[in-house]
């Protein structure tokens, strides 16, 4: 493929490993971005982003206009979702979603009308007068997520304010087949830079660097022109050599700054924040025109695709619809995302989500082996290819043997699942598959562990409570018994008192009687005396 000879404006460093797979980009990046005829129904997945499900606010039967809010953020870890076209809500139900599991999840289904009519839009061109919180809220309400593929809610990524001094625009697009960012830059480089300006404004105008691979000469030219036109001379264009996965967040940071994002850390720890070109355009449109995110550029490609190219596709468009549009009858494999990091779609009925940058309609033998993986020969090629400087072979052994703790010790969670190790493996071992298996099992185990801990605490609390109730009851009984005994004793004492009083009285009586006796005696004695 043609390489740009534009000289990078900042020094470029290197990252460990990486591979040079066949690029397959020319198939799709030669034609302008086109629109696709609307399908009859759109199924918008409410979990169409990383994080939580959005909360639906429409009812079945409601008429909606394009851009109208159909689901709100849960306020914690999700964004808003909007109707991608005008029409009627015909169902809010579980449908198969774009996920490797092939499971169903909640979708809002909209029957489209032919008008494709926008709702009233509220642009916010005066960003210089807006508070930071207002800008973030508008980004959230416009449903913007990272469009590079991870679909992390953008307003959350932008939340951290302090210590950020550089914005990196990720235009590397290193994965084979995918050309949506390339085309977007060629056609709308100025909008990308305007969006970047808005992000930069959030941090009081920080430096902007655009990182782009040298296999996109037209996009680089378009960027240079747009920068001149907008007089944004401070924007630096960093041209990096084409190598997969230079578009990985950590890898691009290493290429542009020579620094590594620390283990368990974030780019923000290095004072950096990174956004994809498509995200920048979405932010620009949200503020300039008030348009929420209702569609994205998707690369349709693969040998089975008769009209490869980039298309503006509304969210929720069934992949089936795209296939019939491209006359892709009976593709061997249907992949969402790229050939390295994407996943095979279990069902062509699923709708496009915000993370869908590419659909590969591959011919039967285009992407797949027809032979089994061979045993590991411990050649170490995977270690040389790993861009995260991990030991893929060790991770493989531990994941295979379900020794998850050891896999974690070897920094399994630093693996970016780029697939470089599996690509170079001479035995064709599906290494990334093992890491995905280990990672998802560990995550599930952690969830189970917290649940078990909670159950243990509740059980202990219950035992304690039962014990306490028992003690309290016993105590109550003891007290009652004591009270009774006291009462009885008190009653007994009364008797004793009475008896004592009676005895005393008796004694007094007796004494009196005795005295009377003696009195008479003395009297008689006296008498005797006198007698005598």
């Amino acid at each position, binding site marked *: 493929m043609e390489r740009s000879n534009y000289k990078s404006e900042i020094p470029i460093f290197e990252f460990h490993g990486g591979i040079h797979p066949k*690029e397959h980009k020319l198939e799709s990046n030669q034609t302008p971005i086109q629109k696709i005829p609307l399908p009859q129904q759109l199924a918008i997945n409410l979990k169409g982003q990383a994080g939580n499900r959005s909360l639906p606010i429409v009812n079945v039967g409601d008429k909606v206009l394009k851009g109208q809010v159909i689901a709100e953020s849960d306020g914690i870890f999700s964004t808003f979702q909007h109707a991608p076209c005008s029409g009627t809500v015909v169902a809010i139900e579980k449908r198969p979603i774009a996920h*490797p599991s092939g499971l169903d999840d909640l979708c809002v289904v909209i029957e489209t009308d032919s008008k494709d009519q926008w709702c009233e839009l509220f642009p916010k061109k005066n960003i210089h007068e807006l508070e930071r919180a207002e800008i973030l809220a508008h980004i959230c309400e416009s449903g913007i997520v990272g469009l590079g593929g991870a679909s992390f809610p953008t307003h959350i990524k932008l939340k951290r304010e302090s210590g950020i001094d550089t914005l990196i625009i990720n235009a590397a697009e290193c994965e084979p087949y995918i050309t949506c960012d390339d085309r977007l830059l060629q056609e709308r480089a100025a909008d990308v830079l305007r969006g970047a300006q808005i992000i930069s404004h959030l941090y009081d105008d920080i430096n902007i660097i655009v990182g782009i691979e040298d296999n996109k000469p037209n996009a680089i030219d378009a960027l240079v022109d747009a920068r001149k036109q907008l007089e944004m001379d401070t924007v630096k264009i960093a041209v990096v050599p084409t190598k997969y996965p230079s578009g990985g967040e950590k890898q691009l940071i290493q290429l542009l700054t020579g620094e590594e994002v620390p283990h368990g850390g974030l780019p923000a720890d290095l004072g950096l924040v990174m956004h994809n070109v498509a995200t920048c355009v979405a932010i620009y449109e949200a503020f300039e025109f008030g348009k929420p995110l209702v569609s994205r550029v998707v690369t349709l490609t693969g040998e089975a695709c008769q009209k490869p190219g980039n298309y503006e596709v509304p969210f929720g468009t069934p992949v089936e619809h795209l296939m019939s549009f491209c006359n892709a009858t009976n593709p061997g494999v249907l992949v969402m995302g790229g050939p390295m990091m994407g996943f095979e779609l279990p069902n062509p009925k699923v709708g496009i989500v915000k993370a869908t940058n590419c659909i590969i309609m591959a011919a039967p033998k285009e992407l797949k082996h027809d032979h089994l993986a061979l045993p590991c020969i411990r050649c170490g090629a995977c270690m040389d290819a790993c861009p995260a400087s991990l030991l893929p072979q060790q991770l493989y052994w531990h994941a*295979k043997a379900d020794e998850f703790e050891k896999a974690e010790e070897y920094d399994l969670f630093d693996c970016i699942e780029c697939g470089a190790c599996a690509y170079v493996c001479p035995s064709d071992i599906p290494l990334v*598959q093992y890491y995905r298996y280990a990672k998802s099992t560990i995550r599930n185990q952690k969830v189970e562990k917290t649940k*078990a801990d909670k159950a243990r605490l509740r059980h202990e609390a*219950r035992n304690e409570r039962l014990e306490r109730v028992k003690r309290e009851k016993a105590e109550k009984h003891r007290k009652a018994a004591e009270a009774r005994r006291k009462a009885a004793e008190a009653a007994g004492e009364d008797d004793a008192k009475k008896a004592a009083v009676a005895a005393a009285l008796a004694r007094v009586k007796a004494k009196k009687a005795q005295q009377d006796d003696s009195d008479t005696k003395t009297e008689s004695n006296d008498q005797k005396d006198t007698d005598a």
Partner: protein
Amino acid sequence: MDLLVAVIILAVLGLVFGAILGFASVKFKVEGDPIVDQINDILPQTQCGQCGYPGCKPYAEAIANGDEINKCPPGGEAGVKALADLLGREVIPLDEERGEEKPPRVAYIREDECIGCTKCIQACPVDAILGAPKLMHTVIIDECTGCDLCVEPCPVDCIDMIEIPQTVSTWKWQQPDQMELNQIPIKQIFSKESS
């Protein structure tokens, strides 16, 4: 004289080491039995009593005192393996008499039929059932461990044990060894030289 010196040195050494040991035993005294806690950590905390003990902790204590490690069906084979690893014992198959390993479940009360007898509330080991005498009861799903203990006491048989359906967030990737080759999502096979 030599003899005397040797005796004195040994005696002094004995006293010094004795003092150190005595000090250490006071200073580093371990409260409770740490192995019991470690075993209890592995047990699933269902508190179902299928092992024959009234809860996970008593079973953990019994294991520490030499009881078999295969009496916990909710913990399953994985639990037996983890216990065997911890205690250096043989991995043995689950004791079938204690029941079989089942997928995770939760109790569900058919609320129309509930007569409000509170018997299930008293049976629940983790206080996951909410209700009052003569009022309807219901299960707090997030707290329920699926232990089955509430099913038996219910006089009107209105409690079902329902399997927890798999969702996108609980789904996990399969072990590739157990997958069909063509189930493995992507195998990069395009020609390996750069264009």
